[in-house]
């Protein structure tokens, strides 16, 4: 994991979304009134003040706002997300020391992100324990959610002050994006600019990432260049890329299910004609990617997904021997499974009836002996002519 995080930090240096992350509240764009309301809440905060619930769609700066305001008011922020507050015991383990022993920890502030991600019954008292804490705040508590209309948010909403964030008007996003492009000394055609903004649907982070992907992209700035590329074009373009930046852009443009992304690289690699040491290296990387995906699924900590592309980028070698393949077995083997497999299945069902066995027992236990016997001419079976080919084929293989 250390190796991964080192590489990640190197990549982050290049990411515009990190480079241009607001450093102070006034660096942010849009939602001026909610921003002012949060500042006012912090300025007036005293023990017992109702906690704050920030509600709004993803990518518009709720989390950034919480971090910046904590920094600006000199709080030590304790950031949690829904996966940390699943059970009552876990909540108490993390938050009781903060709530009860303030002086030891400096000036703490609690931020719980994605509270709408807490599952009602699936969480062992997590939601109820959180509400108990929200009722008697001894430190500033800010929670964030994408949607407050859910049933499970009802009890939380009763004990908090809600501030709603809205999507940012597209033209304001355009001004913000043009400012970044100017600082980077790069240009984007007006058509592409509008399309990037429309596509990001008010999500600033997504807009900046899409723009960077387009600017550093493997494709020129055409109207379709940042459309989601399909998995086949993506894998082929990745291995054909002339630089690691180009390969990274391809990876980011492949906006598909992470499982499908890992599978596509795996099947393409294992069916390619590459030497064993290289194959081992590639499989090691696929294994790392698979492990992080497994961890995401197990913990539901989807924030880890941001590291997936940074792991997969290690596959980049400008290796034109690798081409996209959907299936993770070689064609001769796939053909054999498809055609010979059907014939063996049919043979086994006939023989199983004769021998009073199940088909699978016949194939796994008896078939090799039957084939030997037929070969040594100690057994003659009265079978249909269609089975002649497959029996001969299997007899050759048995040697």
């Amino acid at each position, binding site marked *: 994991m250390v190796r991964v995080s080192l590489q990640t930090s190197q990549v982050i240096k290049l990411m515009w979304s990190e480079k241009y992350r607001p450093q102070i509240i006034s660096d942010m764009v849009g939602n001026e009134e909610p921003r002012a309301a949060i500042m006012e809440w912090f300025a007036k905060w005293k023990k017992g003040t109702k906690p704050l619930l920030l509600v709004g769609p993803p990518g518009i700066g709720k989390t950034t706002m919480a971090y910046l305001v904590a920094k600006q008011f000199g709080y030590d922020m304790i950031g949690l997300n829904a996966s940390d507050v699943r059970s009552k015991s876990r909540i108490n383990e993390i938050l009781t020391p903060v709530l009860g022993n303030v002086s030891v920890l400096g000036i703490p502030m609690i931020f719980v992100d994605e509270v709408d991600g807490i599952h009602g019954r699936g969480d062992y008292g997590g939601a109820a324990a959180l509400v108990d804490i929200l009722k008697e705040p001894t430190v500033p508590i800010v929670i964030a959610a994408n949607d407050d209309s859910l049933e499970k948010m009802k009890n939380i909403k009763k004990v908090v002050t809600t501030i709603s964030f809205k999507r940012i008007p*597209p033209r304001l996003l355009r001004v913000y994006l043009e400012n970044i492009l100017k600082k980077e000394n790069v240009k984007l055609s007006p058509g592409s600019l509008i399309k990037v903004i429309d596509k990001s649907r008010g999500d600033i982070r997504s807009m900046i990432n899409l723009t960077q992907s387009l600017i550093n992209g493997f494709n020129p700035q055409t109207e379709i260049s940042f459309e989601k590329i399909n998995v086949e074009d993506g894998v082929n373009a990745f291995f054909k890329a002339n630089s690691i930046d180009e390969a990274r852009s391809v990876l980011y443009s492949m906006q598909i299910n992470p499982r499908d992304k890992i599978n596509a690289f795996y099947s393409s690699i294992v069916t390619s004609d590459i030497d064993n040491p290289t194959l081992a290296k590639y499989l090691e990387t696929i294994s790392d990617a698979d492990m992080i995906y497994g961890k995401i699924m197990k913990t539901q900590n989807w924030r880890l997904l941001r590291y997936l592309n940074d792991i997969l980028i290690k596959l980049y070698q400008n290796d034109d021997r690798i081409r996209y393949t959907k299936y993770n077995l070689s064609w001769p083997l796939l053909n054999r499974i498809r055609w010979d497999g059907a014939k063996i299945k049919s043979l086994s069902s006939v023989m199983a009836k004769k021998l009073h066995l199940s088909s699978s027992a016949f194939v796994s236990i008896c078939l090799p002996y039957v084939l030997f016997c037929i070969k040594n001419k100690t057994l003659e079976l009265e079978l249909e002519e269609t089975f002649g080919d497959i029996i001969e084929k299997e007899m050759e293989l048995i040697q």
Partner: protein
Amino acid sequence: MKFPGTCIVCNEKIPVNEIGLWAKGLGVKHEKCAQINELQCIVCGSPAGCPQCEFQENCDIPHVSQLCICKKCSEENDAFSSYQKLVNKKFPILNS
């Protein structure tokens, strides 16, 4: 209104006897919320010119942050700096 409802635009309650515009499958909204809104330019204070905006099709006016920037102000040099200056002037607490 025969029955009380919640406005789908502003999320506020609409009491009985008040005028509300209802559509099947959509819900109800206040009369004033049903009027076509236009965003305001934070820089010059005039309407942002939403009917002529290049993003008109993709801008959900009632559901976006209500301060925008008009075409003229957005095309000026350092438009983002002007935006920031005006935001800080209008909301001094953001710069405290």
